[in-house]
């Protein structure tokens, strides 16, 4: 025997895909056990049950591979099968098509004709995707379970405001306009006769009801699932009320049935009151103690509709004499079916233990319920709902994966107390394509195991399906009967038969359930309500159109098999560092749920895009910023000299020499280390920005920009050119000499020219440069030439010596990056305009000091969120390599903050190779940036994308949801002080900035919410 256990950190696949991968590994010859699953506590325990030691430190975001085989060769082959299955392309995107949308927002924007979104993403991730759908005016069905009730409430409140329906969470089934979503039976819906629409707070309850109606020849127009908690006191029936209104408005629905477990009385009153105002008659079917069972309710309904009651199908084994005596064990995949069975059976047998008990005293003992494989030994009559949340974390639903249930069945067969096992089997779209193939042999084996021990075990199956279901109901029933099971189409009949087979009740199995006293279903009645206002868009009820799907592929495939167009979202969850593993998702959910966020972000983006930056002056920093001798500004978030990186140290040394505060490097370092008479602060704190080291000293000259609408100001140093320059940390005499010339000639000359030319519209130049191949960060050639064109006449007419004018013109024209220092203060004006809006998650500054990357966010105003600056990835100048590079540095990421630079990489094909990429890469990068930004800035339009506006206003929540980080184009500085530039490339902020920001934002979410 050879065993293999490994963990792949941060690899995510949905549970159904993992089931397929596990099956691929298990089918390799010589393999005795294989499990490929996310390392949730439940799955780790299952691995332990299989005899595997649990891998250390593996968590729910890690993939766990456990394989046992006869020899090394078999295990190696199984691992190869796992790798092959893992690397198979997900989704159906083919070359030449654009990348699949990563969020529901992007999918909805690309498909305005798709009215419904189907979500099966992990429960904690539902809120963001579902709000995307609601915000885009789409109905949303949430198949996912484990969705917190606070999220459900947030969503349903938002949905009511947007006029859309939320189906779910934990909505397993819906039929809309003839299309089955989730687990859905294939119903025969003739155009003739009455048509029943169903509102269901119970998935399998609705399936049982509609299958029986189908058997009786009654057409079911729609099934709208609203989730099991909708009729609770807290949720208040919000979705049920909307759904009732929609069915009332559906000309194809003549009668409405609401099916649910007993609702909260106050909610029941609300729903009844509404039902009384509808034009369409409403029948309420509540499943629970003292209520008619579903079969009785259907019979009652058929009577109301004037339809005959058929004799419900049942399939009996040839040998019906078998009769043991002992406990009944129910192993269910459908919660409502389990619930109904308990109600029916407890009338005959008394209390039934369960994980979803009829009364709290009957709850399974803690030691049983918390385990992957509950042992029911010694508990008497018991029914387990294996579809309940506790059994489905990181595992497929038992309707898809029978493993857990079959193991439990075997355990019951071995339990001497057990006389009867009751199972449900639900057919239809998305369910196991051939459940009898595994269930029938398991039943047969169970009966044999019991017989070998001298016991008689009866197996009863409640078969919920229709004649048209893809599994072939007759064949499924025949296989089960051949294995020795009793099979009933009516769940209540199955439960009654199972109870009688325990040998403890005298009653015979009653295949039809007829003859029982049945109080009529509660007819709708109640006080008058104002009649329903014009309801949500009901066009989906006529023909649903394409469906946006995010989550497990199986559900999308089930739609495709019905000839439904699927818009697939390439969803995968973001993995955070272990330190943040719990805190970040919680903070993210709380911020997403904050109702201020949407409007606040809209406002932030609008303010950002409304800025019209005008260059009004060029002045020395001591004048413009009020910098006094010894005061220096630097790029990035605050930093002490002791932590400063090489380039920043070099630039500060050069600045001290330039200011005459030190004669040489040694003196400068001594002064900086002692800190005496020296103060350092971020440029950002003075509404200024500086590229790379970004050092500004009092004698340096600065561009001064303003936004006339608000009067806001921003400042930036003058660009020194490329090569050995102060901003890259060089401080040799040529560098200092150039700075002197810039202060004595260039600055004053530009000042005269700018004042003479009048305000220069920098925003307009940026809009043009973005259409001319400049992305405004690593390519500024067009912008520089346009700027020169603006100032040249005034410069020539300035009366300055011709030699100076010529030198200024030569300097500006000879430096393709000259205009970068005008892009940057424009970005600063835009970022500042968006700052300080409570609830907004828009990033207003991104910058680095060579050691830390820092971001500021609108809703947290001037607070910095930092993480370690990363190393850019790109190309190096001759003579330099990766070892020579310093981590990312500079305020220039303000270009990406404002929506250009790396964000519009697609517009600058000329430089894609310079930063180590290709043109398709560039198009893909910009396409991806739309996933994380709030708005598109039409002032900066990208021609190759059909003049789509630049992706603007990075949203912290979307970065965390998608794991997509803003793309920054940047130059690379040498690691050692004095080196200068060594290359250029691409970089992103570290995720830490965003995980820190979300926690800062969450701390400011008001606690009292509606």
């Amino acid at each position, binding site marked *: 025997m050879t065993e293999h256990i490994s963990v792949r950190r941060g690899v995510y696949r949905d549970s159904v895909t993992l089931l397929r991968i596990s099956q691929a590994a298990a089918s390799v010859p010589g393999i005795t056990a294989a499990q490929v699953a996310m390392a949730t506590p439940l799955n780790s325990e299952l691995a332990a049950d299989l005899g595997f030691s649990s891998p250390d430190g593996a968590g729910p975001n890690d993939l766990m591979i456990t394989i046992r085989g006869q020899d090394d060769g078999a295990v190696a082959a199984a691992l190869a099968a796992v790798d092959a299955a893992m690397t198979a392309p997900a989704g159906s995107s083919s070359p030449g098509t654009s990348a699949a949308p990563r969020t529901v927002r992007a999918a909805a924007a690309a498909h305005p004709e798709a009215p419904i979104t189907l979500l099966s993403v992990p429960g904690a991730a539902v809120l963001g995707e579902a709000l995307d759908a609601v915000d885009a005016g789409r109905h949303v069905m949430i198949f996912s379970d484990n969705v917190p009730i606070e999220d459900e409430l947030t969503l349903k409140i938002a949905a009511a405001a947007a006029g859309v329906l939320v189906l779910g969470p934990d909505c397993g089934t819906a039929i809309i306009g*003839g299309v089955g979503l989730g687990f859905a039976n294939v119903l025969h*819906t003739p*155009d003739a006769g009455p048509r029943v629409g169903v509102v269901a707070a119970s998935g399998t309850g609705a399936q049982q009801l509609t299958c029986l109606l189908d058997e009786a020849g009654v057409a079911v127009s729609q099934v709208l699932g609203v989730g099991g908690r909708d009729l609770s006191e807290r949720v208040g029936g919000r979705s049920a009320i909307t759904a009732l209104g929609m069915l009332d408005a559906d000309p194809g629905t003549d009668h409405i049935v609401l099916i649910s477990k007993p609702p909260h009385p106050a909610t029941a009153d609300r729903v009844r009151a509404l039902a009384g105002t509808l034009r369409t008659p409403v029948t309420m079917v509540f499943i629970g103690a003292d209520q008619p069972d579903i079969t009785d309710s259907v019979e009652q309904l058929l009577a109301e509709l004037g339809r005959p009651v058929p004799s419900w199908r049942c399939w009996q084994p040839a040998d019906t004499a078998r009769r043991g005596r002992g406990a009944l064990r129910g192993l269910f995949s459908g919660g409502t079916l389990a619930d109904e069975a308990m109600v029916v059976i407890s009338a005959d047998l008394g209390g039934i233990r369960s994980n979803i008990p009829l009364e709290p005293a009957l709850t399974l003992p803690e030691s049983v319920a918390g385990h992957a494989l509950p042992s029911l030994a010694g508990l008497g009559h018991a029914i387990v709902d294996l579809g309940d949340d506790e059994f489905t974390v990181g595992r497929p639903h038992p309707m898809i994966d029978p493993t857990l249930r079959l193991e439990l069945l075997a355990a019951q067969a071995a339990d001497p107390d057990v006389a009867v096992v009751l199972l449900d089997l639900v057919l239809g779209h998305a369910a196991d394509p051939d459940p009898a193939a595994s269930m029938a042999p398991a039943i047969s084996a169970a009966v044999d195991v019991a017989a070998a021990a001298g016991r008689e075990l009866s197996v009863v199956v409640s078969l919920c399906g229709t004649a048209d279901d893809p599994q072939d109901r007759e064949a499924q029933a025949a296989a089960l009967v051949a294995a020795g099971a009793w099979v009933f189409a009516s769940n209540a009949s199955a439960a009654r038969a199972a109870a009688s087979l325990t040998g403890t009740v005298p009653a015979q199995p009653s295949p039809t359930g007829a003859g029982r006293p049945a109080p009529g279903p509660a007819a709708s009645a109640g006080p008058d309500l104002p009649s329903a206002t014009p309801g949500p868009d009901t066009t989906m009820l006529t*023909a649903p159109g394409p469906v946006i799907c995010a989550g497990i592929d199986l559900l999308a495939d089930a739609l495709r098999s019905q000839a439904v167009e699927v818009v697939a979202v390439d969803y995968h969850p973001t993995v955070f560092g272990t330190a943040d593993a719990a805190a970040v998702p919680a903070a993210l959910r709380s911020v997403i749920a904050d109702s201020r966020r949407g409007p606040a972000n809209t406002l932030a983006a609008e303010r950002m895009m409304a800025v019209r930056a005008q260059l009004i002056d060029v002045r020395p920093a001591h004048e413009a910023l009020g910098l006094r001798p010894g005061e220096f500004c630097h790029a990035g978030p605050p930093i002490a000299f002791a932590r400063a990186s090489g380039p920043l140290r070099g630039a500060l040394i050069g600045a001290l020499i330039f200011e005459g505060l030190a004669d040489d490097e040694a003196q400068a370092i001594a002064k900086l280390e002692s800190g005496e008479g020296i103060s350092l602060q971020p440029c950002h704190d003075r509404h200024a920005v500086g590229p790379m080291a970004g050092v500004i000293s009092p004698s340096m000259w600065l561009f001064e920009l303003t936004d006339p609408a608000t009067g806001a100001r921003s400042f930036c140093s003058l660009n020194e050119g490329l090569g050995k320059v102060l901003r890259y940390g060089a401080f040799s005499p040529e560098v200092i000499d150039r700075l002197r010339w810039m202060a004595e000639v260039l600055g004053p000359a530009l000042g005269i020219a700018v004042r003479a030319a009048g305000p220069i519209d920098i925003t307009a130049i940026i809009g043009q440069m973005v259409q001319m191949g400049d992305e405004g960060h690593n390519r500024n050639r067009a912008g520089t030439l346009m700027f020169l064109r603006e100032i040249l006449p005034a410069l020539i007419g300035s009366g300055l010596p011709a030699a100076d004018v010529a030198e200024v013109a030569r300097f500006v024209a000879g430096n393709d990056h000259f205009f970068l220092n005008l892009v940057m203060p424009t970005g600063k004006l835009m970022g500042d305009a968006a700052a300080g809006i409570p609830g907004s998650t828009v990033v207003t500054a991104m910058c680095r000091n060579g050691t830390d990357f820092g971001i500021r966010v609108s809703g947290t105003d001037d607070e910095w969120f930092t993480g370690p600056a990363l190393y850019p990835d790109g190309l190096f100048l001759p003579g330099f390599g990766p070892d020579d590079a310093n981590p990312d540095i500079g305020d220039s990421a303000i270009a990406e903050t404002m929506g250009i630079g790396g964000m519009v990489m697609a517009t600058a094909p000329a430089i894609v190779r310079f930063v180590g990429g290709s043109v398709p890469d560039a198009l893909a990068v910009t396409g991806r940036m739309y996933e994380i930004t709030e708005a598109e800035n039409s002032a900066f339009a990208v021609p190759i994308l059909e003049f789509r506006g630049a992706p603007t206003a990075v949203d912290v929540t979307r970065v965390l949801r998608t794991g997509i980080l803003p793309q920054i184009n940047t130059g690379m500085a040498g690691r050692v002080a004095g080196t200068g530039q060594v290359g250029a490339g691409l970089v992103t902020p570290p995720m830490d900035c965003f995980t820190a920001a979300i926690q800062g934002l969450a701390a400011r979410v008001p606690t009292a919410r509606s």
Partner: protein
Amino acid sequence: MPVTAPLRARPAGRLGSTRLVAAAATGLAPLLDGADRSGVVIGVLSQAVIIQISGVRDPRVICLLSAAASGVPNGVRLGGIRSMDGHRPGDEVVVGGGRIRIVGWELAIVRRWSSAVRPIDPPTGTTELADAAAAARRGVTASQLAALTEALEHCVDSTTEDVARSAIDALVGLGPGLTPAGDDVVAGMLTGLHATGHAGLAGRLGRVERLDERTTALSADLIRLAAAGHAGVEVLHLLAAVHTRAPLRRPIERLLSVGHTSGADLATGLAIGMRVGATRREVR
């Protein structure tokens, strides 16, 4: 419709057969569920293939629709198909047993979508609908529409029904195109009568003599389906919105975007049928 010189007929099933799933309008049920029948492709558009089935009573045309095509009541929508390239007029087709076989494809009908027109609450918004339709270009004159409206309004017995039928006769086949404008007005009007509860009258008025000789096969089929109470998705969406008293702007826009001018002509007829139908006393 591009009418090319008939090429040599290609038998169904040639060139291999890719299996596809499709969803059919319920109005096609008798044809699709019956025994195998042969048909022929009579038109190929970028988003639709039009098939005529021989030797049967109604309906006799099937439209294979791509994802983007409008939802005609004799339509079969193909999942995941965006182009009808590769088909050509004259290709042979076999229909029956829930399947359609055509050159290159075998389609399994896995789902039905209801094309049935259901009675709606007293209609509102017919003026909005008529105004919107009038603003769009169409090929039927105001006087012809007035004649149709007046004849319908006075339609109380077999004699007056004859008058109405001649007003309809004046429209059938009127105008160019695959579905002539006059036909679309008639189909819309018949749908309007169905929606207001006058199925019997719509059925009688829809029996146009020598219909097949007077218009295209597709258009004749759509008139027959309208008379039998079937309509396209865009019309059904609009009727649902009227029933719900929801804003009509978007459903009207969608209806008007059907075909070249077909949507506007359908809307024109629908407004007439609904307005007259709502004020008639005789309700089924």
